[in-house]
């Protein structure tokens, strides 16, 4: 005790030396190092399981193969195309056809990032090592998104340049420096990355692989089909706000009437991502592991 006068002049918020000495150093550490540790740990987890690498390879290959095949097919029937086809031709539409498959494999892998930990029970070790569960989720999303982004940038670049080379003899190709083209290619990457982040969030919320994958596929594959059955104009109005339509808006060079603007598409898909990750955080914090 230093006497009341000494305490009174001490500015509020300053911790006295006695208190600081008692406080264990580990608690005094900020959350930054915890997030750094969790992130490094998640990277180690991701790269040390072989199935991850296979799924990423499949994602990259499907992006490239489907894009190149469909573009080559289109080039081969070039002279038989109708006027509407020619008018509405997007130089990236066929190139990026593989993204429809890639988003599914990224989705499954994203779900597994969380649910495989619940299935094996290793989630106990994960939360035991990092009790700040929101940081664990943040680390998982950050690492997975970064890896998916790296793979997508490479595969989107490969498919873009290959397909444009195929289209060049028909004078239908575009250059990466043409208006909207770079934005569209990066939009394809962002689309895949955000679907992956949504998938991680679904896995964290539902904890079961089957349930999370089923829900993801229902939203990406089944819902668009159901919505088209609605009476016009509801079908078109709703369709443009669905996750894959919002994603497709980002990667289109030509502006399609049934899609949002690229920026609006990005905002919508980001909003879905934020909502799912927000729900996942609440579930992680509230529920017993």
């Amino acid at each position, binding site marked *: 005790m230093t006497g009341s006068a000494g305490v009174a002049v001490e500015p509020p918020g300053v911790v006295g030396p006695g208190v600081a000495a008692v406080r264990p150093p580990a608690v005094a550490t900020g959350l930054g190092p915890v997030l750094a540790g969790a992130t*490094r*740990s998640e990277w180690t987890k991701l790269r040390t399981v072989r199935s991850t690498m296979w799924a990423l390879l499949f994602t990259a290959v499907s992006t490239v193969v489907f894009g190149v095949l469909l573009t080559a097919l289109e080039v081969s029937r070039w002279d038989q195309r109708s006027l509407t086809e020619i008018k509405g031709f997007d130089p990236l539409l066929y190139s990026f056809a593989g993204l429809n498959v890639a988003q599914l494999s990224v989705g499954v892998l994203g779900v597994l990032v969380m649910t495989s930990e619940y299935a094996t029970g*290793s989630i106990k070790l994960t939360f035991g090592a*990092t009790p*700040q569960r929101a940081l664990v989720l943040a680390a998982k999303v950050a690492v997975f998104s970064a890896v998916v982004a790296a793979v997508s940038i490479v595969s989107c670049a490969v498919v873009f340049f290959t397909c444009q080379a195929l289209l060049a003899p028909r004078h239908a190709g575009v250059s990466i420096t043409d208006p909207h083209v770079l934005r569209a290619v990066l939009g394809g990457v962002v689309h895949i990355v955000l679907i992956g982040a949504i998938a991680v969030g679904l896995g964290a919320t539902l904890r079961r692989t089957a349930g999370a994958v089923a829900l993801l596929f229902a939203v990406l594959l089944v819902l668009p089909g159901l919505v088209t059955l609605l009476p016009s104009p509801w079908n078109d109005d709703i369709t443009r706000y669905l996750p894959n339509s919002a994603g497709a808006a980002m990667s289109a060079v030509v502006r399609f009437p049934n899609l949002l603007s690229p920026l609006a598409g990005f905002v919508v898909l980001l909003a879905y991502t934020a909502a799912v990750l927000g729900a996942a955080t609440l579930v992680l914090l509230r529920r017993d592991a």
Partner: protein
Amino acid sequence: MIAARELTKRYGPVVAVDHLSFTVPQGEVTGFLGPNGSGKSTTMRLLVGLDAPSSGSITIDGRRYGELRFPLREVGALLDADALHPGRSARNHLVWLADSNRIPRRRVDEVLASVGLSEAGHRRAGELSLGMGQRLGIAAALLGDPQVLIFDEPINGLDPEGIVWVRHLLRSLAAEGRTVLVSSHLMSEMAVTADNLIVIGRGRLLATGRVADFIERSSGHHVRVVTPDADVLGELLRHKGGVVTRDGPEGLTVDGVECRDVGILAAAAGLTIYELSTQHASLEEAFMELTHEHADYRAMPQAGAGSAA
């Protein structure tokens, strides 16, 4: 030091842990004992923050586990040894754990060597035997060189050599001044490993104390006599106030008369004795008695009032 205060956990209508209070001192091995389903594992889950208590608290040196920044450096826990990804190598399993708490990678090889898994480090976790998996779980607990160690049923699946190894490990960790809490449903194992005991049943505290005191206090003893004159000696002992039960054609089990007094009585009556010895009730019996009483009390709370006298 680990301290539980009025710790309670309900899962819906089920009360898994019921107003449990205890402390686990440092520098000693404390056995956490109870029948299967008595709430040991739940208490340990609450301790490492996997589940949140319904009420009460459990802390490590005054702090909740969730407040720890790099908990592996302060608390090592073996809760469920097969809770790991089967496709990842044993060594990489430890590497990701080390990374999460910024523990140097060289510690991974140190702990692998200390549990005898250096050669098996490259093998996939799913290919390890039960005992090797248990060793890997123990290695994970030791990774951060923590002051507090928690082991849930650590000898499960271990061969006799492994069991002895775990006993030595627990003893030496405590000798280094660490806090060691080890759960078991085997009283006999705790008798050779632990200094202190915390005994629970149906989520409630039944007894705490030194193992030695516990054995002394709870183990009743009786005298076993083998004699061709069992009928005669039995009658004499009953006169002395003993409670005698017949054990085979020539055997008697006597409560309430000391061994030497049985000998004196038999000699005075000129009876032949083949065998005379004090039998200590086994720890398992004492443990079952303790937990059974509790179960009876729980099942019939009204019955005690009239018959207590």
